């Protein structure tokens, strides 16, 4: 391995066949390049999916209603089902020992909101204090909706960071009044959400105020809950599924909805989705590894092929070497060494190029599904190991063939 003569021989062989070595290297380099890029995209997809889940509390259960789709007890399908405060209270009273966070929500889309000369259209949601944590929001400044706001129908608002930037342009917002659908609200807080811009273009006001301002009586658009923490994932999943099922059944009974009606009551159980997405994530990862490895195998076959040609071309030289006393293993070593050297160097070039590309371009990729594609150190190490093994595999068959060449036949080979 650390034999100068051996290295000299390899460099001589490479120098003599620059184009061939270059093409061989290219196939390996592109194989590694593709593998690393694929793995990075896989990682980016995981990041993207993980980001989606940071939007809300990971164990959130959301309930919303829709129109009925099944005839029941003489009632036609197509009835609009609306929840109200009594539904919320029923759920809360029945499960008071199980619930951690809870809130009813009354929301309106596209509410024109203005501050002085700036204005924009935002979603306005009437919520309870717990909703901050259900949405996984952090306050940048000020406070969130509290009990006092709810009890005394305060016209206070917590605005998203994006709303703040749109309307206030960086000026102090706390204590200022914004006009929402013609009514003035005092800004008491600014929040940020890991979900990003989309989640930050919202305004939260007290639920009671919202119901009064929009003449909604005691109607609710949706309910949001989290359950008390569980020790393990399976327990948490089972508890949240049981809770979801029970709540759905109760709501259906209360609103005279057919038990088989799938549309009228909707429950989104984040925990269940999490599992589904993690499974998907794993599948994506395995798929990318699979495709990447196949690419490398194509590269190995390429190197193997080239090495076979090299052995063929050097048959006579190998014969001469054997005639003057070269042992079979020294011939194998020579061919293997060259193969590993070429694949390793080419592989590193591919690795470096792909890492450079990821460094330069990766941070700018921020779509909903791919975010900051990158590979970690262990993946880089794994690819390096794959490379050396690949080089050895690629070189082995040609080397074995070379070692079995009979000197007498090799010398006759003109």
């Amino acid at each position: 391995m650390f034999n100068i003569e051996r290295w000299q021989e390899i460099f001589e062989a490479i120098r003599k066949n620059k184009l061939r070595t270059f093409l061989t290297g290219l196939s390996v380099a592109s194989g590694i390049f593709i593998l690393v890029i694929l793995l990075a995209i896989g990682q980016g997809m995981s990041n993207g999916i993980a980001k989606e889940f940071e939007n809300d509390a990971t164990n959130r259960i959301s309930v919303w209603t829709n129109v009925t789709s099944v005839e029941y007890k003489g009632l036609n399908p197509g009835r609009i089902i609306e929840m109200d405060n009594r539904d919320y209270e029923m759920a809360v009273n029945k499960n008071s020992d199980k619930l951690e966070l809870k809130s009813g929500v009354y929301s309106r889309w596209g509410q024109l909101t203005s501050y002085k000369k700036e204005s924009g259209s935002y979603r306005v949601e009437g919520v309870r204090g717990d909703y901050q944590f259900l949405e996984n929001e952090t306050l940048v400044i000020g406070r969130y909706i509290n009990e006092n706001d709810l009890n005394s129908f305060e016209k206070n608002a917590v605005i998203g960071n994006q709303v703040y930037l749109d309307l206030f342009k960086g000026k102090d917002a706390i204590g200022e009044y914004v006009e929402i659908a013609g009514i003035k609200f005092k800004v008491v807080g600014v929040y940020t959400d890991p979900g990003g811009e989309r989640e930050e273009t919202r305004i939260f006001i007290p639920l009671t105020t919202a119901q009064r301002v929009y003449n909604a009586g005691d109607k609710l658009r949706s309910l949001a809950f989290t359950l008390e923490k569980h020790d393990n994932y399976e327990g948490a999943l089972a508890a949240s599924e049981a809770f979801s099922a029970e709540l759905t059944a109760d709501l259906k009974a209360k609103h005279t909805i057919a038990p088989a009606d799938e549309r009228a009551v909707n429950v989104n159980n984040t925990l269940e989705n999490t599992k589904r997405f993690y499974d998907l994530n794993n599948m994506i990862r395995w798929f990318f590894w699979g495709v990447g490895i196949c690419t490398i195998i194509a590269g190995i076959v390429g190197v193997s092929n080239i090495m076979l040609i090299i052995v063929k071309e050097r048959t006579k030289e190998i014969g001469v070497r054997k005639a003057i006393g070269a042992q079979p293993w020294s011939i194998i070593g020579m061919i293997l060494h060259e193969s590993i050297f070429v694949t390793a160097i080419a592989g590193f070039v591919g690795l470096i190029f792909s890492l450079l590309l990821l460094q330069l371009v990766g941070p700018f990729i921020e779509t909903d599904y791919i975010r900051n594609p990158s590979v970690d150190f262990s993946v880089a190490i794994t690819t390096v190991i794959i490379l050396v093994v690949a080089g050895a595999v690629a070189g082995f068959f040609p080397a074995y063939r070379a070692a079995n060449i009979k000197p007498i036949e090799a010398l006759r080979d003109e």
Partner: protein
Amino acid sequence: MIEIKNLHKSYHMGANSLHVLKGINFKVSEGEMVSIMGSSGSGKSTLLNILGILDEADEGTYNLDGTLIKNLNEKVAARYRNKFLGFIFQSFNLINYKSALENVAMPLYYQGVKRNIRVEKAMHYLEKVGLADWASHLPNELSGGQKQRVAIARALASDPKVLLADEPTGALDTKTSYEVMELIQGINDEGKTILIVTHEDDIAHMTKRIVNLKDGIIIDDSVVTQVRAKREAYV
């Protein structure tokens, strides 16, 4: 030094079998210089290949310096070749991307000799064949005669018991041939056993004994008066 008894060798090509050597009995003592002659197809190259442990006989025994050469695996064969034999080929068979010095040093590399000792020894043999000034040149920068001298130096480098030369002058003009033969004669004078395969009469007469092969058997084996190449070269 070399003793072969009742040597047989056949080549099989498909259904056809070609009986090349049909019972060769042959003995060479230390310090001899023998030429093996014969027309093409007489089996002389096959005999040399068997003597060179490049090929194996079907039948018969081969003793080289008291060692029985039989059923050797590739590893042992390589070691014996390196230890006992030096090869000189018609087409020189130098490795074309290595300098003259590196070519000569190669058998020593396979003996596991250290690099600096290797270079020293190789240089010594290059001096012996009169090419010390050409040590760093590549084979394609040398003339045919010079290439064959490098090949001879390489054959000598491992200090073998026997030198085997397969048509050593076959690719050279007459003048160069005689110069090379002069060198080989000099080596023989120092006591090295040498076997030369040739079909040229004048080259054969520069050895001390001529073995004539025809259709796989020795038809004539006689000691001759050696013609010195040096004198001949200036005629």
